[in-house]
C-alpha cells in the first residue's frame, strides 16, 4: 500500500527516507519539487501528484512535507489519515515535530515507522501499544551526537523530596509510570523494601514534614539526554595578541519546556589579559585575576539563541596557549525530569479524609562540562 515515505523540508531537501518494500529512488520526488516550485505558498502544493509509475500523496504539517510513494490505486483518505497519524505519533514522542527533533531522534523515528507499517500495511498505530514497544526518547534512549562531538559520560542523580502534612497514621503508596528506570536507589527508612522488590511500588507511612523519600542514580549505561547543546569556536592565533571567542547555546529535547537560569562559566587560559565580548542576552563578567569568565544567560529562547561573541586580548609576546578552556554550564528546567521518571499515582490508606496531593518535577544541571 504505502511503498516509501520521504520527509521534505520547506526548502526542498529530503532529510529522511524510509522504504517498506524495495528502495525507490529519490528522483521520484522531483515531481514533488516541481510542484513545490510552482506553488507560491508552501501550503499550495497539491496533496496528490501523479507520476508515470507512482502517486505521491503528501501532507504538510509543521512546515514538513510527509510524502508517501504509492504504487497502485489506494483510497486517498486512508493514506492521508495515516500520514496524519504518523505526524501525531512523532509529536507525541518528541513533544514537537520539527526537522531538528526528527533528525535528533532518527533511530526512534525509524523504529516507529517500522512498527507502524509492515510490508506497507498499517500494523500498530495506537499510542499506548507503540509506547510498550518503543520507549519515548527522553527515557535515556536518545543517542547524543551533537555537533560538538559525542558525550563522553553522563549520568543522572535524582531525589524525591517529600513534604507530608497529614494527620493520623496515613499509609501511602506511590507508583511510577516507569519504575524500571530506577536501578540504583536508596530509600528513606520508612519505605517497605519488600514491596518495592516485589511490585516496584513505594509503600510507606511517612514522617511529618520534609524528608527525602528516595534518591536514585541512573548510570551512563544508557545514555542520558542532554537538554542543551553548545556551539563554540575559541581560537588563538600564533604570533597574534588576539583570540576569537564565539559561543552559542541552544535547547534540545526539552519536551517543549523552557531552559532557565542558565549560567555559563569558563576558565580561560593564563595568557588571556582581557576579554571584550558581546552577549546577545544576559550579562558577562571576566575576572582578570582568576581568568574566570562567567555569563549569566537566564532563559534560553529557542527562536533567538543566546550567543556570546568577541575577542580576547593576550599577553604580548606570549606563545599561543596550548590548553583548551572547558565550559561549565548550570541550568534548570521546570516541570520536567530529564530521566523521564513519572509518578503514576499516590494513594492513601488507613485514614478517612481526602488528602491534597501535588507533584513538581525539576531538572538541574549538576556538573555539566563541555570540552572545547
Amino acid at each position: 500500500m504505502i511503498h516509501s515515505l520521504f520527509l521534505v523540508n520547506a526548502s526542498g531537501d529530503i532529510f529522511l527516507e524510509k522504504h517498506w518494500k524495495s528502495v525507490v529512488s529519490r528522483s521520484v520526488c522531483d515531481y514533488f519539487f516541481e510542484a513545490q516550485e510552482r506553488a507560491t505558498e508552501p501550503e499550495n502544493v497539491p496533496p496528490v501528484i501523479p507520476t508515470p509509475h507512482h502517486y505521491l500523496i503528501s501532507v504538510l504539517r509543521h512546515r514538513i512535507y510527509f510524502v508517501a510513494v504509492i504504487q497502485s490505486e489506494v483510497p486517498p483518505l486512508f493514506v492521508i489519515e495515516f500520514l496524519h497519524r504518523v505526524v501525531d505519533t512523532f509529536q507525541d514522542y518528541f513533544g514537537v515535530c520539527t526537522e531538528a527533533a526528527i533528525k535528533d531522534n532518527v533511530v526512534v523515528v525509524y523504529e516507529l515507522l517500522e512498527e507502524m507499517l509492515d510490508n506497507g500495511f498499517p500494523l500498530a498505530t495506537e499510542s499506548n501499544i507503540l509506547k510498550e514497544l518503543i520507549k519515548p526518547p527522553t527515557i535515556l534512549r536518545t543517542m547524543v551526537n551533537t555537533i560538538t562531538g559525542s558525550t563522553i559520560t553522563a549520568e543522572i542523580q535524582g531525589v524525591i523530596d517529600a513534604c507530608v502534612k497529614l494527620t493520623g497514621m496515613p499509609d501511602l503508596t506511590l507508583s511510577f509510570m516507569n519504575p524500571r528506570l530506577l536501578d540504583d536507589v536508596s530509600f528513606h527508612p520508612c519505605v517497605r523494601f519488600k514491596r518495592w522488590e516485589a511490585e516496584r511500588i513505594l509503600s510507606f507511612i511517612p514522617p511529618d514534614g520534609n524528608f527525602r523519600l528516595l534518591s536514585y542514580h541512573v548510570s551512563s549505561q544508557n545514555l542520558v539526554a542532554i537538554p542543551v547543546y553548545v556551539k563554540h569556536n575559541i581560537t588563538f592565533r600564533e604570533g597574534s595578541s588576539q583570540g576569537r571567542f564565539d559561543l552559542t547555546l541552544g535547547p534540545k529535547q526539552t519536551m517543549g519546556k523552557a531552559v532557565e537560569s542558565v549560567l555559563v562559566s569558563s576558565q580561560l587560559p593564563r595568557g588571556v589579559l582581557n576579554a571584550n565580548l558581546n552577549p546577545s542576552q544576559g550579562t558577562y563578567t571576566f575576572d582578570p585575576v582568576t581568568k574566570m569568565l562567567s555569563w549569566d544567560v537566564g532563559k534560553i529562547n529557542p527562536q533567538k539563541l543566546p550567543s556570546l561573541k568577541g575577542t580576547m586580548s593576550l599577553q604580548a609576546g606570549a606563545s599561543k596557549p596550548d590548553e583548551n578552556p572547558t565550559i561549565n554550564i548550570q541550568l534548570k528546567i521546570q516541570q520536567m525530569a530529564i530521566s523521564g521518571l513519572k509518578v503514576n499515582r499516590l494513594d492513601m490508606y488507613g485514614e478517612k479524609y481526602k488528602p491534597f496531593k501535588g507533584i513538581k518535577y525539576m531538572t538541574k544541571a549538576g556538573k555539566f562540562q563541555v570540552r572545547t
Partner: protein
Amino acid sequence: MPYLGGDDAVRELRRALSNPNVQSDPLRYRNTILKVIRSMSQGVDVSGLFSEMVKACATVDIVQKKLVYVFLCSYAALNPELSLLVINTLRKDCQDPNPMVPHHTRYPPLVEYVEQPLTAGLRDRAACVRRVAILGWAKLYNLQPTSEIDASVVNELYSLLRDPDPVVIVNCLRALEEILKEEGGVAINKPITHHLLNRLKECDVWGQCDILRVLQRYKPQSDDELFDILSLLDASLVSPHPPVMAATLSLFLHLCPDLPAVSQAALERVRGPLLAACGSASREMRFTALCHIQLLLRSLPGLMGAHYKRFFCGYAEPAYIKQRKMQVLVELVNDENVVMLLDELKGYCTDVNADTAQAAISAIGRIGRSYSDRCLEILTGLLGLKQDHITSAVVQTMRDLVWVCPQCSDTVCVALEGCEETLQDSQGRQALLWLLGVYGERVSSAPYTLEVFIDGVRSEASLGVKMELLTTAMRLFLCRPAETQDMLGRLLHYCIEEETDMCVRDQALLYYRLLHCGIEETRKVLHGPRSDPSLGVLIGRPAEPISQWASSFNTLEPLRQVAVETESVSRGSPEHVTTDLSVTLSGCRVHDVRSGDLSPSPALSPEEFERLWLQRQEDFVRLEERVRCPAVPHCSPQSLQAAMQLLNIQTLAFTPPHALPWRVYLYTHTQHTHSEDTLCRTLILGELLLKVTLQQQPRDDEALRGFLSILTSVLHTLTPESE
C-alpha cells in the same frame, strides 16, 4: 539529489563494524549500528555492509537486534547469497520464548531458508508473531512472484482468517490478496463475508477499510441477505473516521447497483460525515472530501443545496481547495442563493493568488450561462480594476460566455472598449482579438485597437496572437472594409514577406489567395461556425446514474481530474478548441472491423436516439471505456464530425464547446460477417465524454470492440492535426 560522500561514509562504517575493539564494546558497537541506520535514513546506499551487519544480529540486545533486522529486511533481496549467513540466527530468534524477538525479526525474505520459520510463525502462540509471519509470506511471494506458493500455506492462511486476533485476520486478507493476485485475490464466499462483517468492529480503522474493500467483490445471494449486510454496515456509514465512511459507502454502492433508491439513501446518509470532513483540520482531508462531494453531486445535484455556505472559501486556504470549492459552488447555484453566491465569488476575484482569481472569474462565467445579466455586471465591474491578470481572465470568460449565450454580446461589446491597454498575456489578447473579429461591426473602436496590434506585430512573440490577429483582421475587413483595408494589406505584407514562422506565413498566404477568389468565397470561409443556441439544451447537467462514478469513489480518480482541469488554462478560441477531452488509447485491441462494415443508414432521428439511449438496460449491451489522448483533440466539432462521417459514424449532437462535461452523441450500424455467411447487423449508440459509453443492440462483442478501436484511432488521428 545524490548523497555525496556516501562511499566514504560506508567505508568508514565498514571499518568500524569489523573493528574487534568496537565489537567487544557493546555500547560502541550499538552506536555504530545506529550510525548505519542514520545513513540509511539519509538515503545512503549501505547495502554493501550486509555481511558486517549480519554478524551484528547475534546479540542479546533487543533494540540492536531490531535495528539489524530493519536493515536486513531492506536489503535481503539484493544479497541472496549472503542471506545464508543470517539464517541460523534467524531460526534461533524465531524460536525465542520472548515473543518480541520473533516479532522484531519481521521475517526478511530470504527465499527458501525462511519458509520453515515462517510456517512455525503462523502457529505461534503470540499474536504479534503471527501478524508479522503472515506478512512474511507476502514479502516472500513479492520477491519471487513466479514461484508457486505451497497450497498448504494458502490453506493455512485461509484458516487464520478465523483467528481470535483482529490484526491477524486483516493481515491474512492483505497477504492473500497479494499472493492470489493472479487469481483475482482472496476468494470471498458467504461464510467468510459474514465472519468478516461480524469481526469488523474489533479491527482498527485501517483494518476496517481493508475488509470493506475486499468485500466489494461479494455478491449477496438474496435480497434478504443483502439487506442484512447493509444494516450491519449502517453504523460504519456514519463513522467519524472519513476513511471508514468512504470505504463503507463504496461497498454500499457496489453491493446494490440495481437498487438506486438504496444507493441514494446511502448518499444522503453520508452527507453529514462528508460535510464534517470538509471542515476537518487537515487541509488534505478537506480537499479529498471536496473531490468526493463533487462525485456525489453528479448524481444528486440537490444533495448539498442547503449547505452551500459550507463551501465558501476561508481566507488562508490553499489555492487547490479554493478552486475546488468554487467548482462545487457553481453546481449549487439556484434562484435563491445566486445573489449571495455571486457576491462571495466576486470577493475571490481579487485573490492574491492569480490562479484562484482566474478560477473565480471563470466560475462567474459558468454561472453566467444561467444568470447572465448579474454575472456580466460583475465581470464588467472587474474590468474597472485595470489589473492585468483579472482583465485577461474576464475577457477570456466573456469570450466563452458569448459563444454559449449570444444574447450577451451587446453588453460584452460595450465592455471591451479600452481593455486592450491592461491586457498583457497572450491568452487574454487572443480572446480580445477573437471577440473583435466576431463582433467587430458593433465595437466602434475595433479598427483602432486592431491597428495598435498590427503596428506592434514585429515585436509580437506569441504565435497564437499572430494567428488570431490574421483571422481578426480578415473578419473585420469583411464587415468594415473602408477602415481596415490598409492595415490588412500591411499585415499580410509583413506576414508573407518578413515573418519567419511558417504557420503564420502559410496562414497569411492562404488568406491572400482567398481574397483573390473573391469576397463571397472569403465570406463563406471566414463566417464558418457560429454558436448554435439550440445546443443549449445540453448545458444543464443532467443527473447521472450513480453507476457512472461508483467505481471511482474512494479512489485517486476524482482527485486526479483536478490536475487535468487546472492545466487546461491555455485555451484558444471556442471554435478551435473543444474542452479537454482527455482520451487515451488504453490497451484497445485492434480488430479487423473496417469502417466499411459500418454504415450510418438507416438514419436515426434525434428523438429516436434519445428514446433508445434512455431505455437501455434490458436489450442493450453497455460498454464503458476510458479512452484518452494525451493531448486533447484541438479540433472543432465540425472537423470531428467530418472525420467521423468519413468512417460512416454519424454524430448527432455536441455540447457547446467549453461546456463541462463536453460530450458528443453518435451512432452507427455495424454489419459484420461472423463466421461464413451469417450477416449480423447491430446498432451502436455512443456517448463520448471523458470516457466512451456505448450501447449496442443486439449484442455483438466483436463488432463493438472493432467499433471502439476505429473510434479511438479517429480521435488519435485528430489529435496531432492541431499541434
